[in-house]
Each structure stands twice: as C-alpha cells, then as structure tokens.
C-alpha cells in the first residue's frame, strides 16, 4: 500500500523524502484543519485490548499467545509427558561384569504440529522432536543402533568421550548412514553429566533445525538426591525456511506449558535438565519467576556453580538446575529474550501442596 503511494508519486519521489525531512512540524497545523480534533486518538491513549465477542477466553499471559490447541494425540507426542519420559534401553551384563545398555533410534520424516495448526515437516528420532531422552549410568557400556528410515542420510553424534570412529560425523567410522541402512555406535558412558545427541549429517544446520536431536543423561555413579526430574529442551522452528525462527518453545510446542502448567509440589526438590538446541540464534535463556535455582553447569560436578534466577546457554550448552518452590501458586518461566518469550517460549509451574 505504502509502496503504491510512494511509487505512484515516484515522479515526485522527492516528496516522500521531503516529507521525512520537513516532518510534520510546520505542516501539521494545516493537516489538522483537514482532520477535526477528536477523530484520531491522542498519542498514548488507547482503549485497553478487549476479547472480541464470541471468541474463546485467552489463557494465562493475556492475549500474547497462539490461538487454538495442538492435537497431541494425533502427533503422538505430549510435551507434558515428555518432561519425565526417560528411555533407559535394554540392560544386560557383559562377560566382564559391566552393564551393557542398548538403545535403538530410528530416524524418519514426520510432520509435527509445533503451534496450533502449524505443521512443520520435521525429521525425527523415534517420531518425536526432541528424540527420546536416553539415560544411562556413569561407566556403563552403551550401544545405540541407528536405523535410517528417512529420506536423507543421517548420523548420531553423541556429546561425551568416545573414539573418533564412534563420533557420528561424515567421513569417520560409519559416516553418514544412507536411507534404509543402519549402524551401531558403542562407547562407555563418560563423563557423567547432562549431554545431548544430534544428527551431524550435512548440511548440518538443516539436519538440526529439522528436529534431529535429543537429550543424553549420564547419571553419576553415586547418584543425585531424589527429586522431581524434568527434561527441558529449548528449541525453535524456522517454518518458512528463511534462516530465522517463527516458533520458539521448550520441548517443541509453543506456549504448551502456559496452557498446561507443570505441576510440582511445594517444597519438593525439582531438578531441571535444561539443554539448548535452538538453531539460528546463538543463545537462549531460562528465567524462573519468584524463585532462584542452583546451577550445575553441564551437570559434570556435584557442587553447585551458582545460585541465580536466569541462565544463558549457547547452542548445545546445558545445565542441571535444582530448586524448591516455597510458596504455592503459578510461577512463570520463559526465555529472558522477550522476543523468544512472545514467540512461544514460555510456560508456568503450578505449585501446590498436593503436587502432581
């Protein structure tokens, strides 16, 4: 519209430029004569937003939200269930007495719903984004079979300590696994901490942005104190493939935990496994309202690193957070980049005495 006007006037294109230079100052009185006072609202004075009649009441956080509900059944993925879903694999004992833990991960293409009505043509591990949260104990022998049922070559690159051949990058070991093929990665679970895995096939950005990543937890041999454990993967989706994300979330679905707050019991220890898998933005962050948490960076030490209410992580950086909510009520959590918050990365903890 504006281009139409300015182009229509292109012969007097300088007019538009002059409008910027001259500004309204000297000319506004003349314009004001044409447009009687009271017809346009004075600056800064607006009727507060109202929900139009007939529309559903908005959820918490007012009107800054997606409209509608994601069909988690159709998607066969529920972010609320994902929080506490740990894949512990098939356990057996090796001749030397060590524990062997075997996983199978199948990569395949699957459209997923990332915000109500918005379907993203994802590439998945086991049909979900993020893929299953694989969990082992420090020192165990790990075997992960990757089956590629997708349309592109894929790999699994595990963060952790292993041989070059098990690194899951093109040109090393099995390299890229073509569609219809499979491979097995084997290594020892070390060091303990909070790790991740992701496809390292090329082009790398595309394979990660499409959803091929997941959380890999190695528990310390001594264990951690009992707690309500939650997995939170900060991720985002570039739905129109312009190299910028349109949807931000934790565990994929925008605003999911705003509609379905995470329920915890007052005073209980809550442990959050927080992993940043956001593509295209160098950093992401988490801020929890009305509380502070202890940070165990990468989860590789059992002593807290700091006590804070906001943590910033680069892509692939992660941290274990521990906190207790002293008061009942709803406490918001979100990225403290307000842009990400408003684009879906926000939710609530619902703290009560009866908990889950």
């Amino acid at each position, binding site marked *: *519209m504006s281009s139409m006007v300015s182009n229509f006037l292109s012969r007097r294109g300088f007019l538009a430029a002059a409008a910027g230079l001259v500004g309204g100052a000297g000319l506004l009185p003349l314009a004001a004569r044409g447009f009687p006072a009271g017809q346009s609202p004075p600056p800064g004075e607006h009727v507060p937003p109202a929900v139009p009649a007939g529309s559903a009441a908005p959820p918490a956080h007012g009107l800054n939200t997606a409209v509608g509900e994601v069909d988690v059944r159709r998607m066969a993925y529920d972010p609320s269930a994902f929080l506490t879903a740990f894949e512990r694999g098939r356990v057996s004992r090796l001749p030397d007495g060590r524990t062997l833990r075997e996983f199978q991960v199948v990569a395949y293409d699957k459209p997923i719903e990332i915000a109500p009505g918005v379907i993203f043509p994802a590439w998945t591990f086991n049909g979900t984004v993020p893929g299953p949260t694989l969990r082992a104990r420090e020192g165990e022998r790990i075997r992960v079979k990757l089956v590629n049922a997708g349309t592109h070559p894929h790999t699994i690159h595990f963060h952790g300590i292993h041989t070059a051949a098990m690194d899951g990058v093109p040109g090393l070991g099995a390299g890229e696994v073509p569609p219809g093929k499979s491979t097995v990665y084997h290594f020892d679970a070390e060091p303990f901490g909070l790790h991740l895995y992701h496809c390292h096939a090329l082009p790398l950005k595309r394979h990660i942005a499409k959803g091929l990543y997941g959380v890999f937890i190695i528990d310390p041999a001594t264990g951690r104190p009992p707690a309500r454990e939650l997995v939170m993967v900060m991720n985002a989706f570039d739905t129109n493939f312009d190299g910028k994300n349109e949807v931000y979330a934790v565990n994929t679905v925008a605003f999911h935990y705003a509609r379905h707050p995470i329920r915890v019991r007052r005073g209980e220890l809550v442990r959050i496994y927080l992993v940043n898998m956001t593509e295209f933005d160098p950093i992401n962050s988490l801020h929890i309202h009305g509380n502070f948490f202890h940070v165990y960076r990468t989860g590789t030490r059992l002593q807290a690193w700091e006590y804070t209410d906001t943590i910033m992580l680069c892509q692939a950086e992660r941290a274990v957070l521990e906190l207790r909510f002293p008061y009942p009520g709803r406490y918001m959590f979100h990225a403290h980049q307000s842009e990400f918050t408003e684009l879906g990365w926000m939710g609530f903890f619902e703290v009560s005495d009866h908990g889950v």
Partner: protein
Amino acid sequence: MASESAAAGSTPVASRGRVWGYALLPLVLLGLFVLFFLRVGPLGVLRAAFPPVEDLTITRVALRPGLMEVFLTNGGPAAVTVAQVLVDDAYWHFTIHPGPTLPRLGRATITIPYPWVQGEAHTITVLTGSGLTFAHIVEVATESPRPTRAFLLSFTLLGAYVGVVPVFVGVLWFPFLRRLSRRWVHFFLSLTAGLLVFLGVDALEGALSSAGAVPGALRGTALVAMGLLGSILALLVVGRLAGGRAASSRLVVSYLIAAGIGLHNLGEGLAIGAAYNLGQIALVTLLVTGFMLHNTTEGLGIVAPVAREGAALRHLLALGMVAGAPTIGGTWIGGFTYSPILATLFLAVGAGAIFQVVVEVGRLVASEAAREVATLLNTAGFVLGLAIMYFTGLFVAL
C-alpha cells in the same frame, strides 16, 4: 422419413437447433476433457513433486482503538489456512471471519485485540498451516478514518482543494485563449498534449506499481492492460458517436480531455486518501499543495480546444466539474476503503483516457493545420507542456 414434411415446415427452427448444437459441441467436449484431465491427468504426478505454493495478500489493515482489522485475499492456486497471527514478532490472540481456511480467491478478515501505539510502526504476520509467513507493515499507526460526517467533509474539502479549485483557476485562462490567433491556439493545444502525455505516463506508472500489491490470482498487470485499453476504446467510440458535426467536435474534445483528466485526478485523490490512511500526514499536506499547483495547468488544457469558437458558461462549469470532482471521490475511496485492485483499475483507466485524449487533440490540430502539424511552435508547445509538468512537480519540493 415420415415426418419429412413436418421437418421441412420447421426448417429454420431445426437448423437453428443444429447451429446451437454445433456451437455447444466443442464446449461439451472441452468440459469432458477438462474433467478427465483433472481426474486422471498427469497433474497428480506434477503436484506430488512440489510443496504447495501459498499466496496470501494482506490488502488492507484498519486500526481502531485497541484493535487491528486485517483484510486478507488468497491469490494463490489452492486453499490456504491461517494458523496463527503474529504482531511485532509476538503470537497474538485473534479471531477470523468467515473462517481460517480461505479458498482460492477467498477473503477473510482477522480481528486482533492489540494495544498498538499511535505514530509507531507495527508488523502483522500471518502464519499459515504449512508454516509460511505473509507480513504487512503498518508504517505509521493511526486510527483509520471512518466515513463519519466530519471525515467525509474533510476529504471532500481536500478533494476540492486538489481537484476542483485549481482546474477552475486554469479555466480562467479561457478569455486569454479566446484572443489568440490560430497559430497560438495550436501552440497551446500542443502544450496541452504535452501536459497530458506526462499525466498519462504518471497514471500508468502508478497503475503498474499498484498492480504489484494486487493478489496474485487477480493479475494486477492484466488489470492494467484491461483498464488502459478498455478506456481508450470506449472513448474512441464515444468520440465517434458524438463528434459528427465539426463545431461540436471541439467541445467534445474538451469534454474528453476533462474526462481523462478527471480519471487521472481520481488517482490523485486515491493517493491522498491512501497516504492519510497510512498516517503520512506530512505527505498528505505536500500532496495537496503539490497537486494544487500542478492541476492548474489542467484547466488550461481543457479550454484550449474551444478557445477559438468559445463555449457557454454552463459548459465551462461542467468541464471544470468533470475534470475536478473525481478527485473528491478518489479521496473517499482512498481514505475509507483503500483497495489495490480498485486503485490499479482506476489509474489504468485514467491513463488510457488520457492517451486517447492526446490522440484527439492531435487530430484536432491536424484537421485545422494547413500543411504541417509538427511546426516549430507546436513542437515547442508540446515540449513545454512536458517541462511544465516536470517543473511544477519539482517546484513543490523546493
């Protein structure tokens, strides 16, 4: 065979039936063929190879206190579903009527309760079910005018300032023109042609740039071609029908010029109304002053053909109104219901009308010129006409 005589008796009816049959046969076959093609043709294979191409156009955004109204048209080949709406990179609550799925060429209105900020820019992005985004920038947020009496009056006054008054000021050159020799009348007619060519190019350029904002399936450029050629041909026919007598033909040319200029001024009105709609008050002010200066020369052009034999006062008044009044209509349309489709069509019709009038002016001069149309004086007049238009535009900026 038994009914041969009866058939012979109704031969005309039978043969008419046969004619209709011959006319319809290809259509029926074509229909069957298209049906067959869509059912089992190769399209399925072609379609499977490509993701859907969506083409949504936000044709207009109206701002009310605490509310945004977004008007959408689906100009793509397939239905599009609006999944979410973002304002300034934030998901926002919205309602959509009649529904979220727009069929091909379908339209919908999104209502967003949003605390927009007076004088600032806002970006509205529509996210479709397939994740594609269609954005529209409100450059300077201001409450959209509604057709209240006060606004109607204001826009009418603006239109009058821009269109009616300057044209009548120009018509005041009439007594001066009456006292000129034939050579100098031809000079001023040539000058008129120069003015008109400039206005025609201007309108055509406006039409083409506006065509870019027309939803894809409505084919903005084709709309320009239709408006341009349609108005040229229509005025050609009108001129032929009305221009029987030599004496009246000059008056007819004057009316044609007035009509062409009127359509062009309608475009100017649209620009003013649309600029106001965009909150560009400073631009509106410059436009009004610019067009005022500019349009004075149009009055000269209108009366030049009848300078020699004169015209009744009522004709002069009517000519001025035909040329000037459409500006008022333009400001109304631009201010209240701006639509790139209408704007494109009006501007193209205006351009066609002007070019046709240039031809008429040329013929008028040619019919009266003893030997040569392209005399030094006439050529100078034409070039001067172009130059006047160019420099009155510049003068406004300086």
